[in-house]
């Protein structure tokens, strides 16, 4: 078992427009990316659970060219609207860091 924080090269979030946040988990090399992919842990259901959205609202992409997994989620509050806490969406990645992956 390894936590994402121990094996990922990047784990980051950012706006994809004002109404969505996109989260990337990037690995160093293709072999590790493939091992992580085989576990199936990184999937729409995981992001749906962590971010309390419906799985069908998670736009999930496996991106081998960048050894990366990407999930784009609807924001609960649009960037900069009343009550938004993160205008740039840059600090919404933390719940992923402790996810354990059996690699």
């Amino acid at each position, binding site marked *: 078992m390894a936590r994402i924080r121990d094996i990922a090269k*990047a784990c980051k979030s*950012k*706006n*994809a*427009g*004002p*109404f*969505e946040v*996109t989260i*990337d988990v*990037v690995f160093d090399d293709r072999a590790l990316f493939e091992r992580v992919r085989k576990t199936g842990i990184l999937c729409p259901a995981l992001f749906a659970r*962590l*971010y*309390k959205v419906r799985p069908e609202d998670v*736009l999930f*992409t496996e*991106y081998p*060219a*960048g*050894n*990366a997994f*990407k999930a*784009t989620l*609807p*924001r*609960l*509050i*649009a*960037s*900069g*609207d*009343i*009550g*938004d*806490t*993160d*205008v*740039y969406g840059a*600090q*919404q990645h*933390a*719940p992923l860091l402790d996810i354990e992956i059996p690699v």
Partner: protein
Amino acid sequence: MQEYRLLSTSGLLGYGFPEASLDAGMAREPHMIGVDGGSTDPGPYYLGSGKCVNSRMAMKRDLRLMLRAARKQRIPMVIGSCGGAGGEPHLQTVAAIVREIAREDGLHFRLALIHAEQDKAWVKEQLRKDRVKALRNVQPLDDKTIDRATRIVGMMGPEPFQRALDEGADVVLAGRSSDPAPWAGCATRAQLPPAPAWYAGKMLECGATAALPKGHDCLLTSVDRSGVVLEAMNPIRLCTPFSVANHSLHENSSPCFHIEPGGLLDTSDCTFEAVSDRAVRVSGMRWTQQPYTVKLEGAELVGYRAITICGTRDPLLISTIDDFLVSVRENVAVKAEAFGVTPDKYKLVIRTYGANGVMSAWEPVAQTQSHELGFVVEVIAENQEMANAVLAIARVQMLHVDFPGRLCKEGNMAFPYSPSDIETAPAYRFSVFHTVAIDDPCAPFPIEYETV
């Protein structure tokens, strides 16, 4: 043309770049120089208010170096989404700086201004013709939303840039544009295919962000018929196949499918190969023509805001913080109503840093372990006087509301400032985020020319 070279100076006009990188880029004899001017990323305030996201001083510094370089080598300088949001005040601010630099430095050129602000009546007409669609996670547009918007911009594609250059412009300043559009416009105008032209634009709009280490710096991109070659102009930054592939993740909902005015850029089958230890060739991108759509962005005023910042170091208060904040809210409601401000006239937001100030409803940690908590208390109301009045009452409640087991009977909060209450700028929200189908890609974006 066999190869067309485009130079981008940084990720945003006013972010700055090393002069040596610009010199290195110009030594490669680019066919054009540009920089992206804007983004929705800093939030709705800039579009709503007409203010620029970067300072005039910083933009002028970048513009002066770029203008001098462009005029010296007689190449076009092209900037999209001027001033951040790309509305009329933003475009005029950047145009005024460019004219000022020209006067100060004795530069002469033909300037094109491409306008992007859209007339509300025209937007309503498109709505009636059923040509407007909501983007993902956005409500359908209606006339009332259009009326409430303080400003609506259209996001132009490459065609208005091409027209301005065809009509003799040396310097093109445009309002809101699709970020890659200025670059894609220049490369396709040089008879290169849309797929590598758009791909180049997707990279150039962020300056040297596709290199490692990331930084606000200059990127040179050569476009040919089958692909692009990317190279950062600062010797400390290297484009690697990995860094370039990963840049497709940045601020995109998908790393593979990029919807642009007039088509779809598909990067699923791109290959990335190092052509040197610092340059990467990308090929295999595809462009599929689609019905021409332009994105509309609009912002509306939501009210006037006042905030105060404070913190507690009291463990007894921290242990009961949720109940305490409920008491504060109840007290504010009673006191504000007493001076005539009913709860429907304002919004009270209390952000608790150290607990869930960053993630709010997405925060998975239920119980804070922090020994201190920071608060930003915020009131938004229909006018500034009302916002200030309710905020002042909220500040007093934060300081003095009682709670079970309270020992800190002189005050619950440490306030770092006097005055503790801060009037901030008016608050806006993005209210229009839709696409409109159009027949003529240039029609919504009139061009004005002047001799400087």
